[in-house]
């Protein structure tokens, strides 16, 4: 069952150099209880997509079109006040850099209690009790209630962020690269806590990352993004075993693996500027590109049940062959 | 190749200037050039070698920053007025009458478009009578109570203000850079002593200190410029120090050090060019402060009594607000526009040099 549906979302940034189409025609849906991973490199539009869901886009950015269907209604039609009742209460979000994402002048206790104070009608005592028990649940000793963010490590701060996000028992958690500022061992512990909580509460989760390792580890379904567009959407095993978009194939071939040594086949060239893109956004770096790729954009073609690719030639022999050769 | 000769040219020129000063003092008893004259000689050569030539040589970078600055309309407006003011200060005096020329016949003449009623001495009847006096195009900005042309005085005042602003700021910046860079680069005890000294200088309220020193040493334009220059370097020193400190740990400086670059090379090729942007901004933003300080000094009667500075005209004008209001209004407007222009330009430049600002 779809709990959240994003349809043809367009978010543009109006800079002096031109219109940056950070998110252009992006659609995906989130099923109840699943983990959906948005994967992509910098500038792919994964963070902007997530922020657009909750209407958290700042100027010079604007959401130019599309729908965000939650609970049968389009969040984009909500008034700011209605939207605020969703934020933090039914859809919560955590961000990349925990130190920056917590306000340095307030204790973490204050910050965890804040969403509860707005959204839940609890007494002060109940609020405080709940906040303390949340802290302990994410593995922070309750004495830390009165600590300031700078007094805690990155991993601890990120756990405090989770405690804050879960304060009002949201149905959806959006996690925007929550581990990219953490060390591997801290990351592993953090992911463990996160996945436990998710199962415990039956939450649905959108997890944004650039790390394909994490995707393999936690995702149920995957959306691969590049230059503001969706390249491929599929079940996680399909993405790793039967990728049908040259970009996904390229990413997997670029990935060094520590369990065995393999040859890297990088994607040539640079990530393009998001102003003035024509045709398929990937054609400038695609080794299978034909002349037509510079002109036509294929929306999304079905490869299989639940597996979509935005490549015109996703069924061509070359790509199928390349897909088979991807060894991760 | 030019790099080596540039140092040579610079050293030669300094030697020539020092020699001239020596001849001036010992043989000509100080008549060859005024102290400011020497300064301008040094200033123009310095600017040519270390500002104009590098700007020309790095055309790509120059045009990049120019494009960024140009996008700020207020900054361009400011620049336009400053250029106008510079032309006015240089060429103006050739077209206006002598600002010190006194003509009691036409005293208290209002600006063009205004008419005032004044009591005038009638030479035929030998008594005072009331008369309507209108401004004339001969003296478009009117006359003061001694019959001096205000336009002429404003033009010569522009020269004074720009002199003070540019020269004092330049001196302050040179001192600031030397203190800031050495403090950051040598660190430890040197840093401690220099920064405590800076703290002490900063603790004196700038204007009170200025008044105090002028009170003790007397009012003379060159001296005032020197004093402002020698007390106004503290902000620059601090900013340069903190920039230099952060640059020191940047990876490109580490890379240079790992290559075996000498301290001098790192200071002159990496530190100074990288604080240059900040310096230009500090300079543009401290010029108006300096101009205001001189104007305020003259305004309270501590300015050089031999030059017609805007502050002095204002001071004279405030006593007769009821009758000749324009004498107080006009120099103030010039002062205001000048300061405003430098502030606009400085702010635009700061945005242009700030890599974080999105233009």
């Amino acid at each position, binding site marked *: 069952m779809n709990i959240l549906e994003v349809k043809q979302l367009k978010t543009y940034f109006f800079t002096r150099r031109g219109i940056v189409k950070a998110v252009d025609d992006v659609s995906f849906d989130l099923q109840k209880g699943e983990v959906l991973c948005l994967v992509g490199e910098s500038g792919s539009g994964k963070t902007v997509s997530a922020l657009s869901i909750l209407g958290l886009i700042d100027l010079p950015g604007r959401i130019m079109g599309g729908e965000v269907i939650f609970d049968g209604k389009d969040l984009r039609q909500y008034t700011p006040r209605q939207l605020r009742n969703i934020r933090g209460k039914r859809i919560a979000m955590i961000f990349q850099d925990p130190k920056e*994402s*917590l306000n340095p*002048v307030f204790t973490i206790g204050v910050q965890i209690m804040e969403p509860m104070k707005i959204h839940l009608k609890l007494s002060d005592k109940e609020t405080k009790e709940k906040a303390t028990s949340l802290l302990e649940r994410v593995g922070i000793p309750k004495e830390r209630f009165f600590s300031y963010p700078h007094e805690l490590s990155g991993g601890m701060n990120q756990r405090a962020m989770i405690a804050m996000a879960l304060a009002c028992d949201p149905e959806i958690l959006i996690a925007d690269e929550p581990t990219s500022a953490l060390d591997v061992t801290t990351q592993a512990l953090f992911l463990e806590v996160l996945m436990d909580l998710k199962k415990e509460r039956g939450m649905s989760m959108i997890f944004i990352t650039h790390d394909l390792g994490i995707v393999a580890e936690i995702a149920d379904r995957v959306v691969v993004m590049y230059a503001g567009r969706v390249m491929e959407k599929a079940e996680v095993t399909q993405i790793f075993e039967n990728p049908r978009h040259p970009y996904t194939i390229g990413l997997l071939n670029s990935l060094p693996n520590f369990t065995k040594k393999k040859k890297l086949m990088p994607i040539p060239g640079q990530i393009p500027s998001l102003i003035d893109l024509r045709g398929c956004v990937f054609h400038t770096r695609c080794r299978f590109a034909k002349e037509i790729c510079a002109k036509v954009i294929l929306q999304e073609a079905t490869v299989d049940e639940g597996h979509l690719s935005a490549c015109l030639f996703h069924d061509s022999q070359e790509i199928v062959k390349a897909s088979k050769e991807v060894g991760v | 190749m030019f790099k080596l000769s540039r140092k040579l040219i610079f050293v030669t020129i300094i030697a020539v200037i020092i020699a001239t000063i020596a001849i001036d003092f010992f043989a000509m008893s100080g008549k060859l050039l005024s102290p400011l004259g020497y300064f301008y000689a040094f200033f123009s050569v310095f600017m040519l070698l270390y500002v104009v030539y590098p700007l020309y040589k790095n055309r790509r970078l120059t045009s990049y920053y120019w494009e960024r600055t140009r996008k700020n309309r207020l900054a361009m407006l400011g620049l336009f007025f400053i250029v106008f003011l510079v032309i006015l200060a240089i060429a103006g005096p050739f077209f206006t009458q002598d600002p010190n020329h006194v003509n009691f016949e036409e005293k208290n003449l209002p600006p063009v478009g205004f008419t005032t009623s004044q009591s005038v001495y009638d030479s035929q009847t030998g008594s005072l009578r009331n008369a309507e006096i209108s401004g004339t195009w001969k003296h478009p900005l009117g006359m003061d109570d001694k019959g001096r042309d205000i336009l002429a005085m404003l033009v010569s005042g522009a020269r004074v203000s720009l002199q003070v602003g540019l020269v004092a700021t330049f001196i302050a910046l040179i001192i600031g850079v030397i203190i800031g860079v050495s403090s950051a680069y040598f660190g430890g005890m040197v840093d401690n002593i220099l920064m405590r000294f800076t703290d002490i200088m900063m603790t*004196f*309220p700038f204007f*009170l200190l200025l008044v*105090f020193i002028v009170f*003790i040493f007397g009012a003379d334009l060159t001296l005032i410029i020197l004093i402002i220059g020698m007390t106004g370097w503290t902000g620059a020193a601090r900013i340069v120090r903190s920039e230099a400190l952060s640059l020191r740990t940047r990876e490109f400086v580490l890379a240079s050090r790992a290559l075996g670059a000498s301290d001098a090379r790192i200071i002159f090729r990496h530190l100074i060019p990288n604080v240059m942007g900040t310096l230009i901004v500090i300079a543009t933003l401290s010029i108006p402060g300096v101009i205001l300080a001189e104007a305020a000094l003259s305004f309270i*009667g501590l300015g050089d009594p031999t030059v017609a500075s805007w502050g002095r005209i204002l001071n004279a004008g405030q006593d007769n*607000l009821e009758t000749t209001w324009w004498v107080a209004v006009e120099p103030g407007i010039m002062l205001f526009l000048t300061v405003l222009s430098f502030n606009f330009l400085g702010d635009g430049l700061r945005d242009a040099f700030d890599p974080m600002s999105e233009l």
Partner: protein
Amino acid sequence: MPGKKASMGEYIARRLFYSLIIAWGILTITFILLRLAPGSPADNYLANIAASGRARDIAQVQAAIDARYGLDKPLYLQYADYISNLLHGNLGWSLSTSLPVSELLSKHWIYSFELIFLSTVFAVLIGVSIGIYSAVKQRTKADYAVTVFSFMGISIPNFWLGIMLILIFSVKLGLFKTYYDTSLPLFSLENLKAMTLPVITLGSGMLAGYSRYVRSAALDNLRKDFVRTARAKGLPERTVILKHVFRNAMLPVITIIMLDMSGVVFGGAYLTEIIFGIPGLGRISFNAIFADDYAVVVAVTLIGAVVTLIFNLLADIAYTYLDPRVRYV
């Protein structure tokens, strides 16, 4: 970073120690400047005697005066005397008013204080509010208006602004007296009214400056990730701005306001007092200059520096108190 945090008390003790060093530096520099001066405090007096034709007395009088001011002693003893006098609160005699300088100052400081206090309150209240407002409304017409207004406020010479206010409101419209009436009781509505123009004169530049600082500090903080977090929690925009942004933006601004006391405020207050004839420290120092009254000028300069020093110290302490991140290093 590992390492123990020093205690607040220790930190303040250390700042006090620094301040003492700076205070000593201030005294020393003033002393050096005074000794470098061409001429001595007695020159004017001597010139008068010379003019009256009793030339043979000059040497005698000179010696008497030198002895009186300790100028016949070696330099280091003069220095010691100077410091010890100041430490005993002995600021010398004002020749022009025939009063001890300390007495003169204690009579007049309240006027300066009143002017500066009222102007600061005026500037902070309005400056901070329009600064926040214009940051929140970034890139709208209101923001541009505030920006241009602030630039004008910063650029307008405050002594000229004072004269223009007098010209318009006192001379042309007759709403205020052109001169400050010293007979008014200090705490009265009339006095407050008389202070209106001076406070606008001194306060407008400060106000404009603060609104710029607040705007840029608020913009810096509006871009921070924690603001996004606050919004993602569903906080109303008011709370986001007034709680999360404001608190962080005010940290640097408080320091700047404190530090501003030295440069902008003292210079501005000095000129404002002169223009409006308010008998504060600026005005008496101004009078003293033209009466060649050394001791008063020195005393006012020193007081300015010491008050600045105290404000710097307060700024440091306030900052560490308000910002939990500061380690007392």
